[in-house]
């Protein structure tokens, strides 16, 4: 896409090393960075807590079927969109990694202050799963291939498959068998039993309750591939939604006088404001057409 004249001038100035423009631009980067960090952390965290919720909150919900399916799939909704925004406008293959990192940071803050200090649950019950490995894989495939279709097909599949694999190292000790009152349970089940949750009784867990022997009874692998398949679709969908809604545009409006403009005011090419983009609201694609 061709640049507007003022943008061409800006770019030339920015490409000169140590120019005023490049220094200012760098300052702007670091001013915007904390805003981006907090905005993404809040968005990803609240989204994941509302959707994956209990599967991520409790160790005795981290099962072979639902946890493995739900966690990567629901996170993909926001990953796809943010990855697209970072890539389509800035060619930065870090959107998913940023989400994964900020999600885990937000989760630890929440678990420590909310779950541990406030509600007195022990960390062994409430530790969050890590999504970083899968998120990085998504970005790395994008950085390597520079093709979002490849990311949707291979990246998203790998992202979902890596989720249980990257968490097994920390989950395995909680799957050790033990005996309690004549029944065999896992250590995770015991921790869930031992530390009382008044509003989350045992029966409320949405976990694997039995597996047919189809595909060899391998719940984890089947669930991971199913999550991968859904992630592929969701990544493609949300990449496009993210790209589309991140295009700022403007539209002709009769209400502009109430916003302080005169009736005949119009933004010109020279005045900039980034210029019209695609006219997503149905407006003209060139401001001169609106005159």
């Amino acid at each position: 896409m061709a640049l507007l004249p003022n943008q061409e001038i800006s770019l030339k100035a920015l490409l000169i090393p140590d120019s005023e423009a490049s220094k200012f631009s760098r300052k702007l980067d670091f001013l915007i960075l904390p805003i981006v960090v907090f905005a993404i952390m809040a968005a990803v965290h609240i989204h994941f807590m509302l959707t994956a919720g209990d599967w991520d909150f409790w160790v005795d919900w981290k099962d072979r079927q639902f946890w493995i399916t739900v966690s990567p799939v629901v996170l993909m909704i926001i990953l796809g969109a943010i990855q697209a925004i970072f890539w389509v406008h800035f060619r930065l293959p870090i959107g998913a990694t940023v989400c994964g990192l900020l999600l885990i940071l937000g989760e630890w803050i929440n678990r420590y202050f909310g779950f541990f200090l406030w509600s007195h649950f022990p960390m062994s019950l409430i530790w969050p799963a890590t999504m970083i490995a899968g998120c990085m894989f998504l970005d790395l495939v994008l950085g390597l291939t520079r093709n979002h279709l490849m990311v949707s097909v291979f990246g998203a599949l790998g992202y979902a498959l890596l989720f249980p694999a990257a968490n097994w190292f920390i989950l395995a000790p909680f799957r050790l068998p033990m005996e309690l009152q004549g029944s065999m349970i896992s250590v995770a089940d015991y921790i869930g039993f031992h530390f009382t949750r008044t509003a989350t009784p045992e029966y409320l867990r949405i976990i694997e309750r039995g597996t047919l022997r189809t595909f060899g009874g391998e719940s984890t692998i089947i669930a991971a591939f199913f999550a991968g398949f859904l992630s592929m679709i969701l990544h493609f969908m949300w990449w496009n939604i993210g790209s589309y809604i991140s295009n700022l545009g403007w539209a002709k409006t009769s209400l502009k006088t109430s916003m302080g403009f005169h009736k005949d005011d119009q933004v010109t090419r020279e005045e900039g404001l980034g210029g019209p983009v695609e006219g997503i609201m149905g407006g003209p694609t060139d401001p001169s057409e609106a005159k």
Partner: protein
Amino acid sequence: MLKQLEVNKLSRKCASVLFWAMITTVSIFAPIQEAQAHGERNQEPFLRMRTIHWFDVEFSRPANDVMQVNELLTITGKFRLFSFWPDQLPGPEKIYLNTVSAGAVFTKVESWVNEKSAVQSFKGQLGRDYEFKIVMKARWEGDWHVHPMVNVLDAGGLVGPGVNYTVEGSYSDYRHSITTISGLVIDDVSTFSMNRIYSWHALWAVLALIWIIWWVRRPLLIPRYLMNKQGDYEDVLVTKTDRIVSGAFIVLILAIIIISMNMATSEFPRTITLQAGTAVIPPIDEIPSVKIDMKNGQYFIPGRTVIANMRVTNNQDRPIRLGEFTSANLRFLDRSVKGINDGKEQNFPQELIAKEPLRISDNSPLMPGESRDVRIEATDVAWEVERLSSLLNDPESTIGALLYFYDDEGTRYISELFGNVIPVFKK
């Protein structure tokens, strides 16, 4: 004019400063009281009167006792799944014996129903009784209100009588050790494997940071936006080195995951999935009962009195007397009856025992086979305190209760009382 504007500006600034100063002061100095109950009084009366009736509940320690972290508390008792369970509420198809306290301040060490393990949920049977035992351990310092509770699928938690305890010490001293089937001794389940988890999360956070810094070290927003828009800078925005680094990172994270999985599998060769079965726990033998036919009921609002008129038929073979009327954990007693369990020796919460005796129109022994019309009056401010008087706001103004009759040998007969209640607003 300009001066006026300046004055207005100053006034607005002063107002703003005052406002925030006030908010800050209130936030800092406002009295803050920690919530110690769990909203049990907020449950609708029909939930408390017509679902689960708790009885014979005993606490191994007296109310308001001071406990140290790691000390044990045992709660025992029975509960009846009321025959007149509300139709609008899902039945006890899946129930779970639980406890209520403000978070995990007490832990559950053992949980038994009818001497069978109640670690898992089980199906309950209406009109029948279950005997429970819960062993708990004090974990977190503070003043806590502790109850037994039964969670019912789709109906929620139904809370039994609760007692206050003060726990002293520090949660960091809490220890609870378990041993796995393979012989691994876990010193404390509350901190189990946490160093492993912290290290693992830190490793991935560092890797993610390296990848992000790799990109953020270069000029970011405006230059990249314009170069990308211009379209001729694809190989500058993502260089060949970037792509090589991407590939190297893919290999690195795959290697880390494969190695870590192998390590975990060799360290813990025998693991199981989460256990999700249900228990089968039959009720205890039926407790003998006396035939009750409730005629009508009243709630006398000014006197905080529930009145029930009923016909009692003694279908047992010994003379009986009515000793107790209990509903929603409130107990109204006639202590003159032989064999009555007055609750004082069981550390039962005394605020749930009415100070006034249960008034019975005629409580002389009812002979076997004899029928009698009886009027009972249960008066106490607890109807108000426990927010049970709000039954008048329910879409169904009914009352459910248990009546305990005792024969001359002290044997107890438990009958269910259910019927409509009509409010009386004036004296």
